[in-house]
């Protein structure tokens, strides 16, 4: 079976992570360049997988050891996984370059190792085909995230990390109870077989199991009320890691949540779980936007805005319709680009000017015009001005919400967008119309990266059709469980 090379997406970061300590003697810049090389390799493999999946239209299914599922473990690179693994790899590559400049705190070898494991965990969560491996990859992601949050070794970093550990520990325990309930009643861990057998499950057990799994994943996916760790961790973590959290770690959790929800769509009480998630997602948006309004630290403010956008995606996924899921995936892609750019630019500014407090951003338009430009593009795009990419996905999410009849949710989300506009325009005002200062030389590599991302934002904003068609295919991959079951070559066990 061809396409088995896709397993390298898991193998490469894992093996490379173990090689990092060997490079320690060669100096710390060697480790940083090694990190760039590995992420570049990962991007290459991800691009191959993406290209193959989207040209043939067939998912790549990797079966460990040649055992057919459900006996063996499988990886599933469908349209969604192919698209998102590519995004994970590209963002990691950009952030590896950014690490070259921004990571001055020792020990750099541990940083590189955890960086690779974080990338591995997110890739695995997106690609895996059974729920227990989902748990394992989630824990790999979570433990590297805990460690990276505490990496700066300040009091704030330790506190943020501890909050994350306690919440994450509760979340993963509940996730495991959910897995136990599903295994206990269906006798399988394979996602395709779960979907096949879902109709036979006792509705009450399914409801409790699904709710527990959603609760567990909500910690990673930053759904209210389990997102208290997020702003602290975003603020305290090293700048490249913040961008990675927002751009793909959260997305992996959200995807896993959406995947499991739609796998179980045949169980009796499915609709009530969706309703719960709609309420939680709407609350996430509102609470995060209001909290963002009173932040003085720009990094923290953007972290709250990021949580609000995640709430919007969760809302789209919870609608239970094809158009909702498509819009959610589209928003995931757009948000990954915009937030990678924003955190990159803000992180670079904070690094150069010694802090992310809003006072430091006065006169940024004159001092660091490139970064100011990038932050402005990101801010305007996030608010949802036409001709920038997020406008299209926001409109589609609102339309999908109205279609299902959740008018109240659409109204509340739009109202929250107004709040969002207020604080982003306040930031723009500070950047362009206040203060003064000398021009600072900006790093060329970082300048090129933000320009590349800004160009993507504008290009998608003007020609949304191509990315929209990708998102539709990826959304169909999540929504259309029947074809998911058909694609996975199940052995004739149990069914």
């Amino acid at each position: 079976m061809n396409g088995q090379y896709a397993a390298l997406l898991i193998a490469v970061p894992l093996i490379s992570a173990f090689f990092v300590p060997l490079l320690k003697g060669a100096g710390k810049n060697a480790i940083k360049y090694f990190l760039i090389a590995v992420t570049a390799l990962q991007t290459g493999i991800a691009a191959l997988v993406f290209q193959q999946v989207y040209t043939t239209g067939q998912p790549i299914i990797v079966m460990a050891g040649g055992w057919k599922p459900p006996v063996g473990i499988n990886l599933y690179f469908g349209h969604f996984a192919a698209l998102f693994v590519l995004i994970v790899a590209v963002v990691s590559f950009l952030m590896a370059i950014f690490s070259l400049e921004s990571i001055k705190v020792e020990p750099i070898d541990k940083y590189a190792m955890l960086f690779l494991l974080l990338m591995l965990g997110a890739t695995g969560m997106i690609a895996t085909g059974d729920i227990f491996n989902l748990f394992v990859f989630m824990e790999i992601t979570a433990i590297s995230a805990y460690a990276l949050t505490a990496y700066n070794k300040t009091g704030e970093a330790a506190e943020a990390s501890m909050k994350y550990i306690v919440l994450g520990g509760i979340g993963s325990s509940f996730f495991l109870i959910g897995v136990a309930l599903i295994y206990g009643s269906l006798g399988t861990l394979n996602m395709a077989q779960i979907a096949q057998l879902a109709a036979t499950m006792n509705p009450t057990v399914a409801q409790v199991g699904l709710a527990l799994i959603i609760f567990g994943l909500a910690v990673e996916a930053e759904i209210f009320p389990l997102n208290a760790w997020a702003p602290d961790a975003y603020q305290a973590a090293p700048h490249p890691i913040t961008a990675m959290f927002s751009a793909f770690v959260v997305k992996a959790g959200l995807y896993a949540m959406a995947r499991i929800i739609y796998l179980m769509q045949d169980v009796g009480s499915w609709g009530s779980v969706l309703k719960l998630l709609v309420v939680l997602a709407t609350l996430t948006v509102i609470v995060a936007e209001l909290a963002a309004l009173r932040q003085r630290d720009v990094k923290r403010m953007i972290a709250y805005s990021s949580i609000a956008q995640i709430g919007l995606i969760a809302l789209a996924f919870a609608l239970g319709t094809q158009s909702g899921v498509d819009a959610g995936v589209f928003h995931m892609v757009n948000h990954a680009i915009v937030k990678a750019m924003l955190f990159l630019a803000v992180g670079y500014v904070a690094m150069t000017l010694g802090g992310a407090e809003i006072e430091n951003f006065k006169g940024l338009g004159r001092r660091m015009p490139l970064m100011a430009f990038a932050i402005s593009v990101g801010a305007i795009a996030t608010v949802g001005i036409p001709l920038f990419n997020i406008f299209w996905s926001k409109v589609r999410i609102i339309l999908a919400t109205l279609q299902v009849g959740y008018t109240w949710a659409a109204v509340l989300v739009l109202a929250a967008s107004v709040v969002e506009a207020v604080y982003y325009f306040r930031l723009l005002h500070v950047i362009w119309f206040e203060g003064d200062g000398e021009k600072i030389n900006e790093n060329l590599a970082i300048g090129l990266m933000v320009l590349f991302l800004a160009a993507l934002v504008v290009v998608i904003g003007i020609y949304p059709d191509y990315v929209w068609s990708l998102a539709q295919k990826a959304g169909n991959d999540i929504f259309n469980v029947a074809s998911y079951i058909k694609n996975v070559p199940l052995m004739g066990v149990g069914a």
Partner: protein
Amino acid sequence: MISVYYFGAIALVLIGLYAILVKKNLLKILIGLSIMETGVNLLLISIGYVSGRSAPILSEGIGPSQAVDPIPQALVLTAIVIGVATTAMALSVAMLIYEKYGTLNIEEIRRLRG
């Protein structure tokens, strides 16, 4: 049939959750987290347990029909390893917190807010 182990498992989870929610000392919270993980592991094991059957190791006189379900046992092994990693990570962060704040009382560790 509901086995008595389920009650034990749920009780452990609830005791752990209680400790996490109520205790003020960071170490006690982490102990609560461990108790909760133990409860979850017990639940997983008891799902595969069948009374009167032996461990899932094929040997003389023990065929597949006389053994318990091996999958939950494999899962629990993995979960225990992950739990140990989490606990180790949490304890090292607790050490860092004690170094920076000079206390383990969570009410005094409140530099980040809003």
